[in-house]
């Protein structure tokens, strides 16, 4: 009995994965440990397991996505779940159906887990209040993208063996980035020091209160950094003027081999994708397998999502 109690204490206390903010350090570490076990499986010729056999996973995407959606799709299938993907962006919403209506409809089909991406911050939280199954946030508005941060952490651990004590820079359009927010929470939680770098107009209000140092100068911000995370300039979310031009942005904030020299000698580059080559990152640098972890991020993304599905699927 005592042993059982102990494991249940480590077991996730929340039913849903809504954000890193709601996660305890034990829960985060558990997901990362679990994910590690799937890395080699995903590289082996026989990738299929039956852990989630008989379970139904619904991917509910209100916003277009290629890599996150396919990653969750594959993760569910490799665990043996029945996966259904719905791109709601262009059907129900246009007919006036609300998120709540969609939730109730899906709930009636008895899914075991719903993976949701939505353009509005907090939409997964609302959904989780109305359905009987677990909800995984696959990105909501400008708030959180927890599985992206977890896969970034796994990628770093895979290369650097640890996160504690590392210095991590997150650069670019912090204002519109849920990836930045989730990474700030997670990297802080795992013991890294986090710098955010970007033009003032793309820096969220009171960002320092999240436990980071903010810089507008790449040279200062990248100093002694072990990891450089570049973010995409989210033009589709920008209404009005934030920057004079892409050319000017690239000049001051685009990651080039010269600017990378400000960071540690063995610094590695990450990017959540999709990349705007020549806007936030030099195209050769992005493809340089010696410094760029971009492909590894995508690969380990599947492992992290498998771990999340396994843990949160009842």
């Amino acid at each position, binding site marked *: 009995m005592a042993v059982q109690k102990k494991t249940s204490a480590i077991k996730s206390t929340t039913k849903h994965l809504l954000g890193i*903010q709601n996660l305890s350090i034990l829960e985060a570490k558990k997901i990362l440990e679990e994910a590690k076990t799937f890395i080699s499986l995903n590289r082996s010729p026989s990738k299929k397991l039956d852990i989630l056999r008989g379970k139904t996973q619904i991917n509910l995407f209100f916003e277009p996505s290629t890599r996150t959606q396919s990653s969750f799709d594959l993760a569910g299938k490799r665990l043996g779940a029945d996966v259904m993907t719905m791109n709601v962006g262009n059907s129900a919403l246009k007919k006036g159906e*609300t*998120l*709540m209506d969609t939730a109730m409809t899906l709930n009636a089909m008895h899914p075991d887990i719903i993976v949701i991406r*939505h353009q*509005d*911050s*907090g*939409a997964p*939280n*609302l959904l989780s209040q109305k359905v009987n199954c677990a909800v995984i946030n696959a990105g*909501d*508005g*400008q*708030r*959180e993208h927890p599985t992206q941060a977890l896969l970034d952490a796994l990628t770093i651990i895979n290369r650097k063996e640890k996160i504690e004590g590392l210095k991590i820079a997150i650069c670019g359009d912090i204002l519109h980035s*849920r990836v930045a*927010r989730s990474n700030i929470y997670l990297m802080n939680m795992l013991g890294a020091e986090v710098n955010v770098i970007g033009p003032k107009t793309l820096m*969220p*209000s*009171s*960002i320092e*209160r*999240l436990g980071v140092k903010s810089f507008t100068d790449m040279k200062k911000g990248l100093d002694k950094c072990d990891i450089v995370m570049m973010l995409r300039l989210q033009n589709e979310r920008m*209404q*009005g003027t934030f920057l004079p031009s892409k050319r000017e942005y690239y000049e001051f904030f685009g990651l080039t081999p010269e600017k990378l020299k400000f960071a540690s000698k063995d610094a590695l580059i990450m990017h959540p994708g999709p990349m705007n080559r020549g806007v936030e990152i030099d195209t050769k640098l992005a493809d340089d397998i010696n410094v760029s972890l971009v492909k590894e991020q995508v690969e380990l993304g599947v492992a992290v999502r498998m771990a999340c599905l396994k843990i949160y699927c009842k």
Partner: protein
Amino acid sequence: MKEKILINARIIDPSQGMDEKGSVIIDDKGKIKAIGKDVKKISAPSAEVVDIKNHIIIPGIVDMKAFVGEPGYEYKENFRTLSQAALAGGVTSVVTMPNTKPIIDNVSMVDFIIRRGRDKASINLFPCASLTREIGGKEMSEFGLLSVKGIIGFTDVIKTVQNTETMARIMDYASDIGVLIMQHVEDYELSKNGCINEGEVSTRLGLGGISYIAEKIIIERDLSLLNEFPCRYHINQISSKESLNVIKRNKEKGLEFSVGVSINNLSLNENDIGDFKTFLKLSPPLRLEDDRVALVEGIKSGLIDVIVSDHTPEDEEGKRLPFAQAAAGAVGIETLLPLALEMHHNESLPLAKIIETLTVNPANILKVKKGSLKKGSDADICVFDLDEPWMVSGDSLKSKSKNTSIEGRKLQGRVQMTFLGGEVVFKL
């Protein structure tokens, strides 16, 4: 009706600087005949006696900002439910907002709501018309014609006239005919895409923020215009410390205008939004605790003249949405006084000051003979127990919509009885 005498009361009437134990005699026409410590039962031997049981008597509250759903939004609130909620909160006079469907911006609409209000409402209604036609911010409403029909003031409710030239013309025209302009202060370009205060909470929740500058810049602009075109100008609601600084500077210069604040901004801050509570999505937004404290101080120092409920009923459909899409506003007319009493109990404001901002001050701004219990006034009276503890529950509120911003809050002080024109219209 029969003459009444209200005995064993503590009477607080800031309009005559009164705070004393005494009695009130209401004559057979529903007017105050005598009031104060010297009034004795013996002077009205035939009057019906109402024992107030040492509760407090104040003038019926005048709420300068409430939304009644008629016409067009009867599913959110109607005259009957608004009246019940108001009276249960000791509010006897309500300034109603014109953002109905259709919008109240023409004479025939005014006739309609006055008639409808007379038939269905059991409170004093003071309707506002829109400041600009269709609340479009472009053409001014027919101030003169509408005033003659009984419109008390002009406001675009939660919209601001953005065009400076239009605003200048409105104030210039209004200064001549003496109508009351009630402005919502928000610069749209600065507030667009925003739904809560810009700061740590908006960053964490990933929601668009509204900077205090959006409010401040319109106040600066309007007060500059007011200097040129002195009209009756009232700021509906302010939310930040910075706005108070601008107001202070201008009031010290001798500029005449009045300022309101919502009870929500005096009692809550942005942290109360928690995990996307849409009932706390308000306009203007809740801001920092520093701002809240400054607003309370603003009342104390007289920079802020009135407290309003900003009663905004919204049904579930409007609130059960992702935060950015959800409707803004909360019901509050029923809890206005009890919630305001918190500031007395936590010793941040004197009781008489709170009552003043709820009664005589709004009446003076509106130029109506309400908010006072002077001899000859209408006997609109609120009786409340200063200490009775109770807990707010949306379901038991009388308003048709249940979107209270203070669900589950424990309050101290409760309305026991409300008189309108000398008649008991609410009893707990």
